[in-house]
């Protein structure tokens, strides 16, 4: 099931990413879906990184008080 980015949070993004990665590792992804899956995985990584960066910034704000 493909989710839109609106429903995405770090946890769901991470678990979707993990499942793509492990499918890739176990050679369960065929050539037909390869580029689509890789594109999706890259998108998820970008989303997660963005989240982490945001958390880091927020925490810096909070802890510097």
């Amino acid at each position, binding site marked *: 099931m493909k989710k839109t980015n609106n429903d995405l949070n770090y946890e769901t993004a991470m678990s979707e990413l993990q499942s793509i990665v492990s499918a890739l590792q176990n050679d369960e992804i065929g050539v037909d879906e390869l580029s689509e899956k890789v594109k999706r995985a890259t998108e998820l990584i970008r989303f997660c990184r963005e989240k982490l960066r945001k*958390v880091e910034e927020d925490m810096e704000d909070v802890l510097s008080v």
Partner: protein
Amino acid sequence: LKTYSLYELNEFLLRVIALNFSEPLWVTAEIGQIGVSQGHTYLDLLQKEGDTIIAQQRAAIWAVDLRRIKNNIGSIVQDILQEGMEVKIKARVNFHERYGLKLIIDDIDPTYTIGKLQISKQQLISELQKLQLIGKNAALPLPSVIQRIAVISSETAAGWQDFKNHLRENMYGYTFETHFFHSTMQGNAVEKELTAQLINIQKDIHRFDCLVIIRGGGAKLDLVAFDTPSVCKAVATFSLPVFTGIGHEIDQTVLDMVAHSSLKTPTAVADFIIQHNVQFESSVNESARFIQFYLKNRLSTEGGVLTKAEDMLKYKPAQILDFQSFNLKNYTIFLKQHLQQKIKFEKSQIENLEKIASFLSVESTLKRGFSIIRKNSKIVQSKFELHAEDIIEIELKDGATSSKIL
């Protein structure tokens, strides 16, 4: 019977008493009322059995004698000469025609009073132990931060000022809210005033984090009020933690034993409270450091997972594509080889067939000595096809000839 005037009678009594009590003697008693007039001390001595007074006698200490006694045994005299104290006094039995019988006190044995106090203190301690009141207040949890402090002390006590100043000048910048409740900290009134203030504070209990009972220095027997059952029981069962700093070095009062924490001096109590708050602040700082540490760790772990996934995405798809094109190449080679083999096989098949075909050809059959008989250009395959006079054609390896059947 002779009739005496009152004076004659009293003069007679005086002589009887003077004769029988020429020497001073030691007497033990409890002090009832006590008062001072023109430098002289006047007391009522009592002896009780339970609550009943079974003996009572007026006594006095002349100012000059009191000065001498004080010089001999020290200022403890003031603490002994209090209502309710058990005393051992050396007295002359004095009778005056007008003022009647009076004990003139000449000396005091302080060890007797101290011993008595010690005994009643021990009795109180064992009673409190039986009631499980020692340690009861100490079992109360302290709030994480102590800021709202109820103080029972004497307005004039140096200890109260020391306490306030010490709190105010704390080096951490903590603010404190002290609520003062006055009570005498010396003499007989302590018990009554202190318990009354405990009741007052109890009414507003939610406004305070703890209760502090402090006073300045003082003589040892000054502390007697802090060994009374009513004060000790009230403090032991008090619903706020009670800290004491009643300024004594050697002996512990029973009040100290039932308090949550007992410190030597008012400043020590202030330090105790400040340190308690410091502990809380450092645990908060500790938590903050932990959160920062955890966060840094967590972010880098999560980042690591993402980097790993990213790396995977860099090589894995290419690997898959490489593998697939390798497969395709293999298929091509396989197909080519397969085709060649197939062709070779078919070729040899054809060659074999050719060989068989040539072996079975008419010419080679004729060469091997067989002949073909035809009748009317049709090959004869059975003797029943032939009849007499039939013309047949015989083909041999080197040509054909005609014959007639007999």
